[in-house]
């Protein structure tokens, strides 16, 4: 669905993208993770047609972005809503621009209202809504026309648990229906919940790509044993289970509790960032 090849984009002396390549298949969720300034938003802006790359190639469903705008749904990082306009009016605007009419528009709006828990605030102006409600409204405007490609740029930034869960559920459902999703976030556990493949961006290029198990294969986890005298033992290991069994068989002290930590996505990101930098 989305193919980006060797994209570059400079802002003055800053290389926002520097040979960025990424492909996303229909129905796939790709979590794009990286530090602030790594190039995530620049990539989203290029794909959505806000800015143009300096060089490189990009294709959405076999067509250039300019010919594919109706097939893309975008949730930018910042909120972009009309404060004096209601939630329903927002959805009607973006739905109509995308070509939805009458029954199809009404049904799409009602479906999203339920999915994103907007039903009770549909006729309220967005200027008086909470941050989480505004986030859900913004996401709904990106989804109303059932795009083939979803670009979600930190959609849950600052959102509460209810908002986050509602969004993740909808994103999962859309991906199951065949939508390709690019999901940028700093909340890495969200990617686990989405069962997303992960693309790590650093310095404007992808430095690692794969699913969690592949990327975390060589990362150490941790085993922690707590003894009855309240002292503990922590061991860093790439095989936590085997190490735990080994430790338990060898110790002659009384163990009161055992903790087994597999490497987290945060560990993964830190590891990749360090290895790439070195």
């Amino acid at each position: 669905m989305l193919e980006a090849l060797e994209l570059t984009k400079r802002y003055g002396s800053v290389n926002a993208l520097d040979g960025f390549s990424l492909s996303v298949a229909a129905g796939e969720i790709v979590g794009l993770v990286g530090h602030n300034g790594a190039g995530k938003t620049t990539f989203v802006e290029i794909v959505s047609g806000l800015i143009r790359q300096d060089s490189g190639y990009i294709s959405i469903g076999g067509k250039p972005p300019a010919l594919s705008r109706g097939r893309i749904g975008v949730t930018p990082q910042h909120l972009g809503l009309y404060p004096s306009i209601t939630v329903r009016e927002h959805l009607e605007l973006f739905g109509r621009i995308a070509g939805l009419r009458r029954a199809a528009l009404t049904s799409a709006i009602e479906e999203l209202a339920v999915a994103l828990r907007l039903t009770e605030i549909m006729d309220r102006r967005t200027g008086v809504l909470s941050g989480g409600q505004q986030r859900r409204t913004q996401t709904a405007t990106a989804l109303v026309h059932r795009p083939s490609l979803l670009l979600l740029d930190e959609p849950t930034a600052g959102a509460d648990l209810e908002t986050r869960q509602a969004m993740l559920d909808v994103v999962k459902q859309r991906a199951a229906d065949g939508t390709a999703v690019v999901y940028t976030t700093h909340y890495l556990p969200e990617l686990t919940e989405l069962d997303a493949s992960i693309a790590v961006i650093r310095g404007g290029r992808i430095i690692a790509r794969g699913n969690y198990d592949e990327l975390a294969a060589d990362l150490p986890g941790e085993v922690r044993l707590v003894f009855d005298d309240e002292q503990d033992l922590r061991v860093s290991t790439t095989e936590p289970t085997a190490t735990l069994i080994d430790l338990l068989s060898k110790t002659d002290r009384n163990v009161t509790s055992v903790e087994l930590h597999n490497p987290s996505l945060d560990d993964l990101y830190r590891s990749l960032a360090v290895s790439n930098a070195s």
Partner: protein
Amino acid sequence: MLLDAPGVETAPVDVHPVDGSDQPASRGGIRDSLYRIAAIARHNLIIRRRDPGQMISYVAMPMILMLVLKPIYVRVVSGGDVQVVTGLLVMFSVFAIAIAGNSILVERHWMTWDRLRQSRASAAEMLIGKTLPIFVLMVLQQAILVIYGCLVIGIPMPRSIALVALGIVVWAFSLLAVGAALSTVARSLGELGVISDVGAMVLSSMGGALVPLSIMPGWAQAAAHVSPGYYALRMMKAAINGDTTGVLIPAAVLFTLGAVAGTYAVWRLAKGWGRTRLL
């Protein structure tokens, strides 16, 4: 898989080169385009309806001033009643540039303009949909002031309604286009306010909207020709007097101004602002 930094092997894909042009998106036929324009126009009409204060003041203020200033104008120049109506109509319609400019500039503040740019709507559709309701309001503003001039101030009934309508439409178009262009260069609502308010005072005064040209010094009369207000005033007076030639020449000047400003606005709005932000 950790990717080696220098290069990434990627399977050949169906890709498209950057050709440096902003290719028009495939957005269906004229009906689809009109549908999108109607959606954006409807949306902006709702926004305007919920915040009508600015336009009310630009209708009420000239009405009051016409009444107050009419005796002075009638004493100072012949045709003083037409002068006071057309002069204040021109001046306050120029003030209304701020409405057009504001309506676009706030979209940049709300960061909604980029959201529209990411949608299926083209830049021209967005600009037309955005400005259509304001165009209608500007036409209404001027029409109300002309009718008020006839019924309350006592100017003669126009000999040709069509000429007056043409004058109003052309003037509203050029004001709207200039307002849209200004909204793309202003960095804040305050800056836009200064440009539109001071600009309105200077251009309409230079053009003879406030003080009749006939009592201005020679250099001021010569300088008036660079002001759009001058052509608007000439056009409105000629329209009320039923002078077709007198309407068409300034109308052509104003239409050209509007076309240039409108083209610039479409180009600038389509290009966006990237990472540069407003004040």
